[in-house]
């Protein structure tokens, strides 16, 4: 009984950690621009697929992973530079549609450059399962959780201890005021896209040894990441992480105890209920409208 419970706990936390990384990517870009980047899931796909194909080209795994994250970050920068920055007086909705177009473009390109079949990566350190209180846990699970914790700590340091990080925060609070005190808002926006693309790519690399990837996996992962960011409260980094983990746990326990067919549906039912009572998510800012 306990073994089962712990088993679901770990599988929920593992998926939840990935949702959290994708959700953090949403939060970063949202804070810098109020845009929901619907190509976020595609960054996750690119991380996994690039690593698969770079390794197939003969590169050792660590190099392939590094390159894959860098390539994806460049795609993120290109999206900001070539598309988002080119618009003039565009509303947020228009920008969102541009990111949807970018997502379709990236999926199409991946289908041409890679292929349509499913791929997987070898686990980072073998697949001898560990036994924890009657649950079997693969080492990859620990990698996912460990790296997620490291990334969250690094982001925390970046936003509270570095000038650049504080400039990002300042921009998210008030772009005009940030510009007045000398923050290069355009650069902050560029940085946010690069950073969230890299975050997505890392998530993609981490999850591929556990669940296979193909050119279309980004759609659902993007939706889950968005859900995580909204559930936690849009724009809150802590909220995105909490939202991701909660989402992962709901799915794992629904799949384990109720019905694996309805695990996704249950996650959305819970989100709807939360939003009905807390319209700004669990940790979002309660805003008032100005006329």
């Amino acid at each position, binding site marked *: 009984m306990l073994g089962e419970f712990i088993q679901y706990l770990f599988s929920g936390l593992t998926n939840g950690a990935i949702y959290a990384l994708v959700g953090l990517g949403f939060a970063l870009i*949202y804070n810098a621009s109020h845009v*929901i980047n*619907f190509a976020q899931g595609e960054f996750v796909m690119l991380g996994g697929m690039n690593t698969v194909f770079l390794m197939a080209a003969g590169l050792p795994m660590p190099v392939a992973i590094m390159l894959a994250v860098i390539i994806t970050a460049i795609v993120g920068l290109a999206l900001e530079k070539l*598309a988002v920055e*080119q*618009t*003039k*007086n*565009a*509303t947020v*909705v*228009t920008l969102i*549609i*541009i990111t*949807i*177009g*970018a*997502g*379709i*473009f*990236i*999926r*199409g*390109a991946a*289908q*041409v450059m890679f292929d349509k079949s499913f791929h997987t990566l070898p686990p980072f350190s073998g697949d001898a399962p560990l036994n924890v209180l009657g649950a079997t846990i693969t080492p990859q699970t620990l990698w996912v959780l460990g790296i997620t914790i490291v990334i969250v700590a690094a982001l925390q340091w970046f936003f509270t201890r570095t000038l650049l990080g504080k400039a990002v925060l300042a921009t998210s609070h008030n772009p005009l005021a940030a510009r007045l005190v000398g923050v290069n808002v355009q650069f902050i926006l560029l940085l946010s896209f690069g950073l969230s693309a890299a975050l997505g790519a890392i998530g993609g690399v981490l999850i591929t040894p556990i669940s296979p990837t193909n050119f279309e996996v980004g*759609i659902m992962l993007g*939706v889950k990441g*968005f*859900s995580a960011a*909204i559930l936690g409260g*849009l724009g809150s980094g802590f909220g995105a992480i909490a939202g991701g983990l909660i989402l992962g746990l709901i799915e794992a326990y629904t799949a384990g105890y109720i019905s694996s*067919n*309805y695990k*996704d*549906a249950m996650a*959305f*039912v819970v*989100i*709807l209920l939360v*939003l*009905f009572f807390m*319209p*700004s*998510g669990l940790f979002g800012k309660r805003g008032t*409208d*100005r*006329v």
Partner: protein
Amino acid sequence: MMRAFLTPRFAGMLALALVIAVLPAVLQNNFQFDIAIRVAFNAIVVIGLNLLIGYTGQISLGHAGFLGLGGYFSAITVTTYGWPPAVAMVVAAVIVGALAFVIARPILRLKGHYLAMATLGLGIIVSIVLNQESWLTGGPDGMSVAPFSIGGYELTTQKQWYWVAGGLLLLATWLSLNLIDSPVGRALRAVHGSEVAAEVVGVDTTRFKVLVFVVSAVFASVVGSLSAHYVMFLSPVYAGFFHSVELVIMVVLGGMASTFGAIIGAAILTSLPQLLTVLEDYEHMIFGLIMMLVMIFLPKGIVPSLQGLLRRGTK
């Protein structure tokens, strides 16, 4: 007397009616008729959705769910239980409208991206149920649907469907234009401009938002029913997340708060993938690229942006 007929509203209706009337002379084969019919169906849904997005500023990322509910209700009651299709269609529209009415109040209290999330969630829940309950819906493989018939007269040829779809499109356009020009329309625009300000001057914003939400859901349900009979097949993809996103793209690409923009958006987004199939593997890449380019260079959407250019040109 003539003046009244030459308002932009009436001129637009007349132009649309002319296009619908003349088009069959230009269309050469069943394939082209098929695209025209699909354009008309999508345009009706998008006109409804445009009322919600363009005029009240409320987003819905789950509208394909209403299409799916209407479509599956018709498909199941007609094909499995032998209901008359017209009755099924009307009952479906009433049920979907009632459902939209019930969920509208809690959902429309949410704002912006939270509203997007809630509608997205509802849409996905619908499509998951349609996928899982295969005893009723045929599951992911879909189900075949009986043709549409009324009083023993069966709609079979593309031409017949063309006139039905075209006529309904005209009706939907007329309803939409009238709604926009009515006091309700002015209230809606006030809600879009500033909800708080609208409330302060005494507009019952919630009532109007709910009204438009229900209208757009009913439009979708009717099209869902008819479309299922026309294609004679229905699968959960029709109610899926990506279809919902496509509908929103049609609204924004054509031009928000423009009824004719909605029609243009539907026409382009429905026919473009058909034209791009010659590119085979490159289809999606080019499609995504075109979407980005249109939004970068015509950020207000095609119809409003071009109208703006024309106005500047004549000055």
